[in-house]
């Protein structure tokens, strides 16, 4: 994704990451509880978490909500077959649409799969996702004539697993 040098965690960083991967202790002083769990001084937990965050290993410490429980029951993965020359312009444009959470360029898997751009749309109803994708397609056709050869939306009908990232050391 980028040419940055990877951050190399030391043994204590790894212990800390493994200790929080299941979640932060739900306490008024969660980092102190974490330190206690590890048998460390709280200062070390703060220092190491701050470094992990400043180096981008930790993106944020937050809740991962269940889309379905919050009423975002419609989640459509829109996929687009876009002329390679325009794919970055169109990817940037799609990422700015309000309903889109992620947008990626990916390789095609021909002949099975000819789409090279993926944009995830979220809404409360499937028809809203369909409407948003149709509207995006119409705007793209006007802005980048003939650049989009085909698109479709793959709806998710079930979450089979959602655990977030597991760390393996």
């Amino acid at each position, binding site marked *: *994704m980028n040419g940055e040098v990877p*951050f190399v965690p030391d043994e204590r960083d790894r212990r800390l*990451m493994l200790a*929080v*991967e299941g*979640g*932060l202790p*739900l306490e*008024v002083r*969660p*980092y*102190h509880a974490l330190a206690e769990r590890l048998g460390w001084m*709280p200062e070390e937990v*703060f220092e190491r*978490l701050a470094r992990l965050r400043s180096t981008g*290993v*930790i993106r*944020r*410490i*937050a*809740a*991962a*909500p*269940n889309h379905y*429980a*919050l*009423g975002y029951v419609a989640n459509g*993965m829109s996929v687009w077959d876009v002329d390679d020359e325009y794919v*970055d312009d169109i*990817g940037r444009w*799609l990422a*700015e649409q309000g*309903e*889109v*959470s*992620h947008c*990626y*360029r*990916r*390789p095609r*898997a021909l002949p*099975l*799969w000819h789409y090279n751009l*993926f944009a995830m749309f979220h809404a409360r109803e499937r028809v809203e996702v369909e409407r948003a994708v149709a509207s995006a397609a119409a705007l793209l056709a006007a802005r980048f004539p003939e650049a989009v050869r085909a698109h*479709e939306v*793959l*709806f*998710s*009908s*079930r*979450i*089979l*697993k*959602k*655990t*977030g*990232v*597991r*760390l*393996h050391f």
Partner: protein
Amino acid sequence: MRERAPATLDDLDRRLLWALQDDLPLCELPFADLAERLGVSEEDVLQRLRRYLAEGIVTRFGPFFQVERLGGAFCLAAMAVPEERFEEVAALVGAFPQVAHNYRREHALNMWFVLAATRPEGIAETARAIEDAVSLPVWLFPKEREYFMRLRLRP
């Protein structure tokens, strides 16, 4: 996890669920500001958060790791699973700790999952191990470029 009905949420739940998607500060009492803004105690915040986790409204509360920064990789993968084998394959795929998410989608490619590995080679290795376990081809769709915009869900 089956598709579920939306949870019943009161006004405080909505405001709290919105706020909890923000980065939690690294300080002794990280819930204090949040609780004060919402006009409740920190213990109220925690009690509700425990309930959200117990009821699956929140699937996890903690750090979001960027595996790529550790030299690892994420990769989207898909399989075309015959309907009569769907449950069996979902269970086998789900048992791999490297599988972070797995969704059923309506397409010939009907199972879409994300692989996470701490080494770039881990993606191809895991894909091969899944192919061996389920006797179906795994298609990998690595990201070549990300156009970033994080969606925050308005409860």
